[in-house]
């Protein structure tokens, strides 16, 4: 047997993403190369330096600048990409909101990592939650292959919907792990993802003058924000269709028992460990959320409606309340389902998430609690 026959390669997560971006071929890439960053932009810079890529690679003086550079590049009507993480994303926050507000189809990778203080560069998903409400499509991937596929889809979605897309990958757990993955070739990507041709008026062009990100007074601001919200919400159908077209799967994924008593819900790489923990005979289901914004409420409700207990496993918390995803599940369940919904917090700041912890969560899932339960051991 030879694994290379099906084009699988053994790659580090960051490299898999970098090779995919190279094959997609954005016109402009900008990033700030300091911790917390990843090998993604290091590899992309090297491809350019070695003459293997045609994009403009702009090394910025800060994350704020990197985000502003891709904003500017996208505003001229070309494909633009950046990658960031943790404090870097926080520094970009102002620009992140602007990118969505200006309807620029930028794609960004967020290698999810914790937020200071205390200083900690390890994995959790608190960083992305700081821009949860910015108007971006937020995708989450469990493994290298999902990450690679989501990046290809991200450009198609962004350009079709005129909305920015962020692909989230667990920092270290995915970015620094070697596992087999298939990288789609330039030709394969070209068949799926057409060249980017923005419409007149969508970008800065003296032949067709337009203003992006202008002042909107109280007479108009609210309608413009409402439109962004409605477009983002409506984009769910397109996202679901592209997931089906490109990966043959949906934007959520259920596995486990047919009539589960308890359903565990999570996002990202922890799903693998959860699947390994749950036995086939256990009356337990596992629900993976791949699209967090827009939030696939109906799809989720359909799956969880008959369960008795729902345990939501978060790597982020709205401090002073409960886990971020748990809060969303409680909101959509309101008046629709009667299950006991509990919030479990795991893996903050890189704490290893073990099968023992998942077993503990399964045991606690049928006990009523409205508080965030921290499972650190």
């Amino acid at each position: 047997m030879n694994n290379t026959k099906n084009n699988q390669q053994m790659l580090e997560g960051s490299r898999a993403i970098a090779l995919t971006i190279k094959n997609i071929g954005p016109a402009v890439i900008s990033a700030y190369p300091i911790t917390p960053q990843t090998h993604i932009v290091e590899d992309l810079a090297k491809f350019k330096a070695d003459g293997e890529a045609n994009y403009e690679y702009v090394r910025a003086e800060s994350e704020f600048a990197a985000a502003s550079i891709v904003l500017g590049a996208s505003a001229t009507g070309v494909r633009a990409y950046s990658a960031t993480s943790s404090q870097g994303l926080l520094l970009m926050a102002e620009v992140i909101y602007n990118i969505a507000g200006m309807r620029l189809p930028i794609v960004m990778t967020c290698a999810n990592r914790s937020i200071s203080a205390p200083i900690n560069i390890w994995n959790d998903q608190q960083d992305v939650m700081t821009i949860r409400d910015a108007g971006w499509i937020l995708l989450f991937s469990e493994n290298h292959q999902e990450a690679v596929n989501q990046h290809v889809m991200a450009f198609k979605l962004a350009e079709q919907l005129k909305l920015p897309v962020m692909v989230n990958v667990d920092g270290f757990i995915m970015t620094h792990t070697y596992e087999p993955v298939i990288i789609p070739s330039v030709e394969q990507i070209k068949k799926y993802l057409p060249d980017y041709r923005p419409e007149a008026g969508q970008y800065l062009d003296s032949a067709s003058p337009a203003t992006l990100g202008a002042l909107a007074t109280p007479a108009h601001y609210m309608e413009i924000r409402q439109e962004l919200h409605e477009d983002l919400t409506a984009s769910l159908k397109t996202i679901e269709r592209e997931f089906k077209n490109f990966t043959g799967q949906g934007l959520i994924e259920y596995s486990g028992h047919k009539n589960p008593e308890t359903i565990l819900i999570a996002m990202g790489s922890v799903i693998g460990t959860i699947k390994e923990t749950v036995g086939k005979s256990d009356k337990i289901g596992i629900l993976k959320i791949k699209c967090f914004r827009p939030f696939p409420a109906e799809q989720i409700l359909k799956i969880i409606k008959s369960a008795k207990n729902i345990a939501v496993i978060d790597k982020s918390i709205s401090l002073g309340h409960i886990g971020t995803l748990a809060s969303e599940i409680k909101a959509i369940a309101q008046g629709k389902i009667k299950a006991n919904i509990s919030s479990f917090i795991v893996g903050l700041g890189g704490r290893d998430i073990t099968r023992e912890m998942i077993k503990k969560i399964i045991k606690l899932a049928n006990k009523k609690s409205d508080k965030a339960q921290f499972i650190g051991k």
Partner: protein
Amino acid sequence: MIQIRIHGRGGQGVVTAAELIAIAAFKSGKQAQAFPSFGVERTGAPVEAYARIDNNPIILREQIYQPNVLIIQDASLLDNFDMSKGADKKTIAIINTAKDKSNLNINLPKANVYTIDATKIAMEIIGKNIVNTVILGAFARITDLVSLDALKQAIAEKFAGHDELIAKNIKAVEQAYKNN
């Protein structure tokens, strides 16, 4: 599923060793995974890295708490840490040392402990005390989890563009393979 835990010190190429095992296992037709322990990496500080090998795709992400194989790149770690933590009766350890195995402080049956003077081979062939690839030669011979050929291919892939380094490392790996 085979779980391999590698112990060494920062600067000894512990993470690279795990990656080489995963690449070589993959080239041998298996599914594999490798990742570091994501510690604060300082030269000389204890470092761990992990590799898993299986016939099916590997989805488990937790660190390795029940190793089937331990690779210990620096025997001085045995004096201060319990390297065999989580090991069972079948767990084997491959240790870089010039000492006899009866003088090593490791809580495993003696028959499960293999020693190799990787430092000596590294100094002679590579000219530097970099033992991570050398010890993998012994690993391939003792465990049969990866073939020598796949290991050589993995080294060539990992160090692509550095021909002299590849040649020296392959020579050292062959030597270690022969000695065990």
